[in-house]
């Protein structure tokens, strides 16, 4: 059984302009100890997916219309708030993309870290930690991220730290309570390239050490190559392809993935102008069937009718494209 399994997830947003159909049958699996990557253009629903899994999507305006998210077989979407909180305290944790935004500017690093541990029930037999344990674990968590002088960092406010330091703090926060699953949403996007590298290496090290499962969202193919074992490619709210990372990078099957690979160097900003003509569809009235069909050069009539399911194209390699129907 997979540690985390999202099936046929449909999520939308109710806005003034109308209803935005964002997630359109998202399907994702993370096994125990596995590191999974999730790539896609900006605005394709990656962050919505993560937030849905974490159940922190603001509702309203967001609405989960269907599907389930199973964590160890239990549906996160149907859990009581209490149970979700316990899940967050023990099992699932996350790092968000902007370390400038992810830390509360009004409180010291120490305060925030301590409160996480205070409420974490990470003590013996799931009980509360003692005060001394909390202090100890705070310092260890900061040290583990490679920060010098954790005692001083604890008394600092986020605004007194550099971006890299802040992201380290975020990692420390995320990993301090020994969670089993880490959802990392573009953890290095807003950082310097050199620092990105450092941070990722540190993250890799820590995750390895603790045996944490990871779902990593990123733009960077380099990151994907180095850090993940399996990869999902997402387009306009649906998964279009999944395979082992190496295989997928070497041999993409879905027309979208193929276009994506061609434009790798520019894969950070707006659209993928060179690789694929057109832009990400409007979620107000998304294209029927395969949402990629208006941009696809292999479009067939069936593409406009129904969402293509995953078709096995190789061992452990699936593509949601009618090209592989046979």
């Amino acid at each position, binding site marked *: 059984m997979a540690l985390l399994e999202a099936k046929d997830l449909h999520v939308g947003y109710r806005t003034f302009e109308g209803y935005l159909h964002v997630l359109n049958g998202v399907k994702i699996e993370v096994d125990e100890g596995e590191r999974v990557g999730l790539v896609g253009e900006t605005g394709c629903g990656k962050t919505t997916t993560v*937030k849905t899994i*974490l159940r*922190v999507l*603001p509702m*309203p305006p967001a609405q989960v219309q269907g599907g389930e998210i199973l964590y160890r077989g239990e549906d996160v979407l149907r859990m009581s708030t209490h149970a979700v*909180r*316990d899940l*967050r*305290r*023990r099992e*699932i*944790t*996350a790092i*968000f993309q*902007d370390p400038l*935004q*992810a*830390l*509360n*500017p*009004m*409180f*010291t690093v120490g305060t*925030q870290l301590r*409160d*996480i541990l205070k*409420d*974490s029930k990470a003590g013996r037999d799931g009980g509360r930690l003692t005060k001394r344990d909390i202090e100890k674990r705070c310092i260890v968590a900061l040290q583990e991220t490679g920060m010098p002088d954790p*005692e*001083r960092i604890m*008394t600092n*406010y986020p*605004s*007194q730290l550099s971006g890299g330091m802040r992201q380290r703090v*975020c990692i420390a*926060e*995320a990993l301090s*309570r020994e969670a089993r699953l880490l959802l990392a949403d573009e953890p290095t996007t807003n950082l310097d390239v050199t620092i990105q590298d450092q941070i990722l290496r540190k993250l890799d090290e820590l995750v390895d050490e603790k045996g944490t499962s990871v779902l990593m969202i990123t733009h960077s193919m380099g990151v994907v190559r180095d850090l993940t074992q399996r990869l999902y490619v997402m387009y306009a709210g649906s998964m279009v392809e999944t395979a082992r990372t190496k295989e997928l990078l070497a041999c993409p099957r879905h027309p979208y993935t193929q276009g994506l690979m061609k434009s790798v160097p520019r894969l950070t900003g707006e659209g993928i102008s060179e690789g694929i003509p057109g832009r990400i569809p409007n979620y107000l009235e998304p294209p029927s069937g395969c949402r990629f069909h208006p941009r696809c050069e292999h479009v067939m009539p069936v593409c406009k009718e129904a969402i293509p399911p995953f078709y096995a194209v190789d061992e452990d390699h699936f593509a949601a494209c009618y090209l592989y129907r046979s």
Partner: protein
Amino acid sequence: MLSPSRVLEGAVKDTMLKYIGLRLVQSVFVLFGLSILIFFIARVVPGDPARAMMGYLATQDQLQAVRVEMHLDKSFPVQYYYWLRGLLHGDLGRSAYTKRPVVTDLVQYIPATLELILFATLISVVLGQAMGILAGYFRNSWFDGVSRLVSYLGIATPSFVIAILLMFFFSQVLHLAPSVGRIPIMMTAPPTVTGFMVLDSLLAGQFSTALVALTHLVLPAFSLAVIHIAQEGRITRSSIAENLGKDYITMHRVHGIRTSRIVFKYLLRPSIIPTVTVMGLDFAFLMSNAFLVELVFMWPGFARYALTTMLNKDLNAMVAVVLVIGLTFAVVNLLVDILITFLDPTVRIQRRGG
């Protein structure tokens, strides 16, 4: 061994002191200008303060004696010089209306108003915050809608209208609350220690007096508070709503911090700062609205004294009253500034750096 945080705090304190000193000097200059302004207004406009002081049965001789005593026969700068000289000796002159030293009057009347204003502030902070937090947390719910409506009404209704409406409904129609004064006439007031009736009663062990004084305080304080409940409610609501959308609040939730801690610690602290920022201005509004509310509720306070002295062209009292208001305003603003520094580390760090 000196820990780094200690050093940091020391530096903060040091620069804070400098900052406070600078602000104080600024305030002194502003008050100086204010005193000239109000002195000018009070003395240059024609009128006869002596007549106002002595009543219509005063003879010309008596009037002349008063004019000489108050230096009204001298030129404006000379009058101002005498006034300033008195001020340096802690003498603000004698009130023409009460015929007592102005300082004595101020000591008698200020606590009553202060009690009213502080109580009103308390009400507005508690209710305004509660409303704002609830409306912000449950935004776009029915409660948010109602609170929005209440806020609009609260901001648009002059305090004297609220005072009259409250008095009309609660004391005259429903007979639920006393209408005037600080305590019932036949109740013995506790010995004056702080000048706050409720506090003094408690100190003297007169619990029933304290309670009754509190009931007398409710309507006038509430009349003053309404507009601020509305404003603070709105401000808190929008900053709560804004902060709720911030990543760090989501992160707190993701990290499993319990809701009460998130709302009352992590959400409230940043959300309360805009409210605190406007508190200085709020205080000024409370002060000026007290002029009208004290009139309606016959509150024997500073604002009513101020109004009476202004209407009676009581020069010394008038100048003193305006300056006291200016001074309190300056002090409150300074306090608010200091408070913000302690609430908002970013400001503190900035101020330390600059």
